[in-house]
């Protein structure tokens, strides 16, 4: 790197750089605290929009601070900038390959938006709601109230399942395994009504009942959408409880292990 690339760093410039660093750190800290706080105070869709502002603001602050510092360090000619970035990229690339990959993944995630805060995603078998998209990772909170940090690096290699695709609707499925000898049409009809009469059901979306024959039972899959994503497990619970009560009233038994593996007749 050319030795005259950097300006002489005077005391004033040094103070300015320190102030920029402190101000940036302060802004980021305030943003990280205030945005989730503000979002938690608000219900409805606007909450997700506010949550998604945090990483964008942080990125903007960091980029702005970096540029401001750089301008105080060097005369920003094209050649100097190219040389500087080239050198930085090589050094950092080796040292922080995965880290940089996660950072770039984070930028790509902001651009491509495979998920956004509030979405329900499954990465590597971990299912939960996106709580925040950080620079290096995405925070999701599982239904068991556990926070999982997934590096953006995974965006390159793993399949990412987004249950609601950044939209309002998220399909849930309640499964019923029944002893096979029964009136399928009647059960189909009743399970449809179970979903139709649930207070959690989003009626703007279709309700579907899928029937499958398994070697040991008839499998019913009751598919419907809850009004609110966060109610998906309450919704499945409601469908299951009411569905089983209805089946019981119809005199239909759930498949059991005893049925799946009936005792052999005495020899």
């Amino acid at each position, binding site marked *: 790197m050319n030795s005259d690339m950097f300006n002489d760093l005077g005391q004033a410039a040094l103070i300015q750089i320190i102030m920029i660093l402190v101000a940036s750190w302060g802004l980021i800290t305030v943003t990280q605290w205030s945005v989730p706080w503000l979002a938690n105070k608000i*219900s409805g869709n606007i909450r997700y929009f506010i949550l998604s502002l945090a990483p964008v603001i942080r990125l903007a602050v960091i980029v702005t601070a970096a540029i401001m510092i750089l301008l105080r360090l060097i005369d920003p000619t094209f050649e100097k900038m190219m040389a500087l970035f080239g050198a930085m990229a090589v050094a950092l690339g080796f040292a922080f390959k995965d880290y940089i990959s996660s950072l770039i993944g984070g930028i790509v995630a902001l651009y491509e938006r495979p998920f956004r805060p509030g979405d329900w995603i499954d990465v590597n078998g971990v299912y939960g709601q996106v709580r925040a998209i950080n620079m290096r990772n995405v925070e999701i909170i599982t239904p068991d109230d556990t926070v999982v940090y997934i590096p953006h690096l995974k965006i390159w290699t793993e399949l990412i399942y987004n249950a609601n695709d950044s939209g309002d609707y998220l399909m849930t499925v309640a499964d019923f395994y029944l002893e096979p000898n029964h009136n399928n049409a009647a059960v189909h009809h009743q399970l449809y009504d179970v979903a139709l009469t649930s207070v959690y059901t989003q009626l703007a979306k279709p309700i579907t009942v899928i029937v499958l024959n398994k070697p040991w039972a008839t499998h019913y899959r009751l598919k419907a959408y809850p009004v609110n994503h966060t109610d998906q497990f309450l919704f499945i619970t409601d469908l299951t409880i009411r569905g089983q009560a209805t089946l019981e009233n119809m005199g239909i038994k759930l498949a059991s292990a005893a049925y799946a593996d009936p005792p052999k007749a005495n020899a």
Partner: protein
Amino acid sequence: MTERHDPSSSAAQNAPPLWEYVALTDYQVPQDSLQQTMRKRLDFLRDWYKREIQQEKDTSDSPFMPDEGLQQLPDWQLEQIAPSPLSQSALPSLNELMEPWLSNEANNPNVMLFVEPPHADYADTLEKWAKQHEWLILQPPETKAILQGGTNWLTSIADLEQPWFLPALEHIYLRHVDGLDLVRAFLDQAFSGALGQGVIACNSWAWAFLKHVWQGRSPVPRVVQAFDSDKLAQHFQNLADQAKPRHFAFRQADDGSYIIPLPEPITEQAAPQSNDNPFLRHLAAHSRGIPGVARAIWRDNLRTEPDKALNTANKNQDYERTIWVAAWEAIQHPKLPNDTDPNNLFILHSLLLQGGLNTDALRLILTSIPPHQITATLLRLERSDIITHKQGRWQVTPQAYPVVRSFLATHNMLLDDF
């Protein structure tokens, strides 16, 4: 005595009738000014700030801010000034709609469907019409019978040899897995013509739900067109005029402007014409053009104080009493006690979808909420004037209806078409 004129007499010739029956698709919810819409948004932020940041407690028992020097009217006087409209008010328009249908049975559908929003204030017009024509009024079956499929009820009406009228379709179903068979069978038979000639009235929320329950083909529902500010002015004046020979002038409490324009002969003498008063426009938009909701809010805002200056200046015996109306900005609409409680959401939605329910039926429908929580939520909502217990059913109050509808809309719940 000066002859009474309709406030909008000059335009009355061309204006649509007060009670205008139209197809559901032609229903037009009155719109408010952009300024008022923005103010509502700001009010939302202010309320949120008070609730969440300041943790402010609402110490007021009254739903409205008391205006200095003015007092609320006693009930007997409210009944005089803003009584329930007479059921025959909408009859001429209804007759006009029904006569062609009655006279041409071959080409018209056997069954007419009317959809009404809650607190429409004209619900008994159809019943009066049916009685006038000696039609049979169908009574809904008991809850237990609905859950058993209502076969007996359906059989009892299958052999009717006279036209019939069902006043509340929402009372023959329950949002329960066993509560839909009857309404499906009834609608199948009714709209296929198997039950002969009939008229069905249905709550707008119930109809929004039943469209998902029953996918058959029904005639286009008929509704009464929304009341905009002009219609509200005419409606309120008509109601007040029922108190003849005494007449009333309605003026806004904060600036004295006339909310309902006075008849022209009087206006020329003294009072300024003020048909541009925004109160009724705000009220029409807020109540979504539903006359009963508008009337309830109107009644709650009427204030009294002897207005000697006006009476002596005018020397007008027609307007011996001025009724003051609280300014729109001074109204405190009912507030949900804790709008993040999901129990509020499900209970209020169920009440609207079923046109009101008793506690037992609510417990039957809302199996996901423990019974004691249902009772507690009902009492909390009642204390906040959101619901009331009337005719054996919990119902959303007309004053709270716009707030409740807006609350349900915010949470993406199924809404009616009004």
